[in-house]
């Protein structure tokens, strides 16, 4: 027995030491990186979205051991290509970025989140999500299937120099009979655009422009986004309950006629402008007014390119005065969501990724970065001290975003939403280019909408629209045929 004593002792000591050294190490590896070696494939629609994900990639790996491999499909081909993959019954991606207005087309390919929330005890902190996004962007057939990624909405920006110069104020009052101030209504907006156009409102000898806009009909349609905020303020609605388009009714016509009439006060080339051109004009001090995506605010506050740092005002997009009260209808334009593919073979890990990138502190990094065009979508984003002090007047910028939330109007979130928007946007730009009268353009768009509805099936579309109509009603958005005539 004695001869075994030494080897047994040595073996026991060695095994003990290995166990002591190894156990904590293993625990750390499992505790900190429980999915070590897993790679999740994401698909997004632009390089800047890929960049935004890269901001959280390191923390994601450090915490979960998961690596992200992100594929970029250019924006104009994104919907067609991703739906082609999904509709063929598979997808090479685990995590999908999508436009919430296309939820009816994508939703059936997404994995419902609730069972996984229960199974993995996921913390999506839904109460911290801005009410309107939570209500209209996250569900398919009543099931929670996605999380917001980009809280795209429009707010108004103005150059304070233009509005606060005493000389400008005097001239404006003499011409229009009321005080020069950041516009609250479309009438005031149009007056200001007319007033400022063509001269050096900043005190220079430069010929500056009246206002900025994006009137190109590409993507889901820039000109459509610019039109619909007037359209809804004048009481418009996309369809009636039977899917008859209402876009060519009085509200739509008035909105488009005003846009056509004020075209001379916008920069040359505005018909070709996408999102970035008017933002650049604003930050270079060449337009005094712009309503645009909230990401514009981060460029406004960036001294490397902006000459209006600390000189910019932020507010809600103008509306229409109805019976003495201003009705604002800023747009959700259109936002981005993230979801887990139901064809993914790594659903659990992907759910953890979705949870991680949606965490308040991680998503804050994404929406704060000036190089992403991702916008705040959590209440905690708007109240984060770090964000509120990120640049001069960042607090006012975030307050303007929060003030807009109760009035937001979503896209027509029904199947073929993208197609409806493209057709309408094309016709709006046709009218702006004076190739068609506003009435012709909107009538044509309405006929095109009818064709899309017919192709997709009237009853099916009606069912989807019925739900959305109800949701919009809950948000206080209803068809008001009488507003177009009485709006001031």
């Amino acid at each position: 027995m004695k001869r075994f004593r030494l080897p047994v002792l040595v073996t026991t000591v060695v095994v003990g030491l290995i166990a002591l050294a190894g156990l904590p190490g293993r625990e750390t590896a499992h505790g900190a990186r429980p999915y070590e070696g897993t790679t999740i494939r994401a698909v997004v629609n632009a390089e800047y979205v890929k960049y935004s994900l890269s901001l959280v990639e390191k923390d994601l790996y450090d915490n979960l051991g998961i690596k992200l491999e992100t594929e970029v499909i250019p924006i104009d081909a994104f919907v067609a290509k991703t739906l082609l993959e999904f509709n063929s019954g598979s997808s090479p991606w685990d995590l999908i970025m999508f436009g919430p207005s296309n939820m009816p087309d994508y939703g059936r390919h997404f994995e419902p989140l609730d069972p996984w929330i229960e199974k993995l005890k996921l913390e999506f902190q839904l109460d911290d999500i801005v009410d309107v996004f939570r209500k209209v962007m996250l569900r398919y057939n009543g099931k929670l299937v996605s999380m917001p990624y980009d809280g795209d909405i429009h707010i108004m920006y103005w150059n304070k120099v233009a509005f606060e110069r005493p000389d400008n104020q005097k001239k404006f009052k003499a011409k229009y009979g009321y005080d020069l101030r950041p516009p609250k209504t479309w009438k005031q907006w149009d007056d200001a655009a007319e007033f400022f156009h063509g001269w050096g409102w900043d005190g220079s000898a430069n010929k500056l422009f009246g206002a900025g806009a994006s009137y190109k009909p590409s993507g889901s349609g820039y000109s459509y986004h610019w039109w619909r905020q007037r359209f809804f303020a004048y009481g418009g609605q996309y369809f009636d309950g039977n899917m008859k388009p209402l876009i060519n009714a009085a509200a739509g016509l008035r909105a488009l006629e005003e846009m056509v009439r004020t075209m001379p006060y916008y920069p040359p080339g505005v018909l070709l402008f996408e999102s970035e051109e008017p933002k650049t004009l604003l930050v270079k001090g060449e337009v005094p007014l712009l309503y645009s995506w909230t990401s514009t605010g981060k460029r406004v506050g960036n001294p490397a390119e902006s000459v209006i740092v600390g000189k910019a005002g932020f507010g809600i997009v103008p509306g229409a005065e109805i019976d003495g009260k201003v009705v604002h209808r800023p747009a959700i334009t259109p936002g981005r969501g993230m979801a887990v593919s139901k064809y993914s073979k790594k659903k659990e890990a992907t759910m953890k990724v979705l949870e991680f990138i949606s965490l308040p502190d991680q998503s804050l990094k994404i929406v704060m970065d000036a190089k992403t065009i991702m916008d705040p979508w959590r209440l905690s984003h708007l109240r984060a001290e770090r964000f509120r002090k990120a640049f001069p007047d960042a607090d006012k910028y975030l307050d303007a975003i929060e003030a807009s939330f109760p009035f937001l109007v979503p896209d027509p979130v029904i199947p073929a939403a993208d197609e409806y928007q493209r057709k309408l946007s094309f016709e709006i730009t046709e009218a702006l280019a004076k190739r068609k009268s506003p009435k012709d353009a909107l009538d044509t768009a309405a006929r095109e909408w009818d064709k899309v509805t017919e192709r997709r099936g009237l009853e099916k579309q009606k069912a989807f629209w019925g739900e959305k109509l109800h949701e919009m009603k809950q948000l206080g958005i209803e068809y008001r045929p009488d507003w177009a005539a009485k709006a001031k």
Partner: protein
Amino acid sequence: MSTVATTTALVSTRRLNRHRVQRWLAGLLTYLSLALALVFFLGPFFWVVTTSLKGNEDFFAYPPVWVPSEPSLAHYARLFTHASGGRYFTNSLVISSLSMLAALVVSLPTAYSIARWRFGGGFLSTLLLVLRMLPAIALIIPIYLMYKLLGLTNNYLGLVALYTVVYIPFAVWLLVGFLRDFPVEIEEAALIDGCSRLRALIRVVIPIIAPGLAVVALFAFIATWNEFLFAVVLTGIETKTMMVLVTSFTSGGTDMFYGEASASVVLGVLPAFAVAFFLQRYLVKGLALGGTKG
């Protein structure tokens, strides 16, 4: 008499001078027009090239920064380190080169048989033309479904095969023109001297119609390098091409990535430019040669 001679000489000198001035003016106008055309066509590209070398602060500078004082390759570096630029560039190079080679290998014998023996009796060449007439957008969904079934999506082979098929009609028609221009007597002399048909083709015909092959190669390379629709639909993350990357930077707003977007455009045109430069001595000759018959 001498007065008349002097006057005549003076008139001749004046005419000569006027003629010289007219020629000089015409030359000046020609060069000015060419310079203007160059500025018009190359100006935007010049701007893209300089933007790719600028710092972020210079994108919006006023007055505009035409040439950056401290050019930097940082945007190119970012393209390779952050945007999978290296992978997509290599993919494009591999796919375009293989498609170019495959198009040459398949279309040369086809064109040869059509030119020498009217193979297919006129039907084959017409059929090939019909293939060329089909717009890519009409084919994309059936091709996608077929590829998905065969496991050819996100695969070099799938894209190379497709590009080869798509490019063959053009290549065959172009080469038929070159081969019909080629004097058949030279080939017959080689056959009399003991060459086989294949050997005559390789040793005699190909060296002489090399400019034509260069044109086909160049056009095939550029066409496949610049192709977008099939590339975006049939590729995945491993096989994406440079044109898809360029478009993902430049469509839907570049936001703050102007530098990377410009760098991707420059890299996107560089290889096609390099191949054209390399083949240019054959090119002019080749274009003229193939144009005499068609």
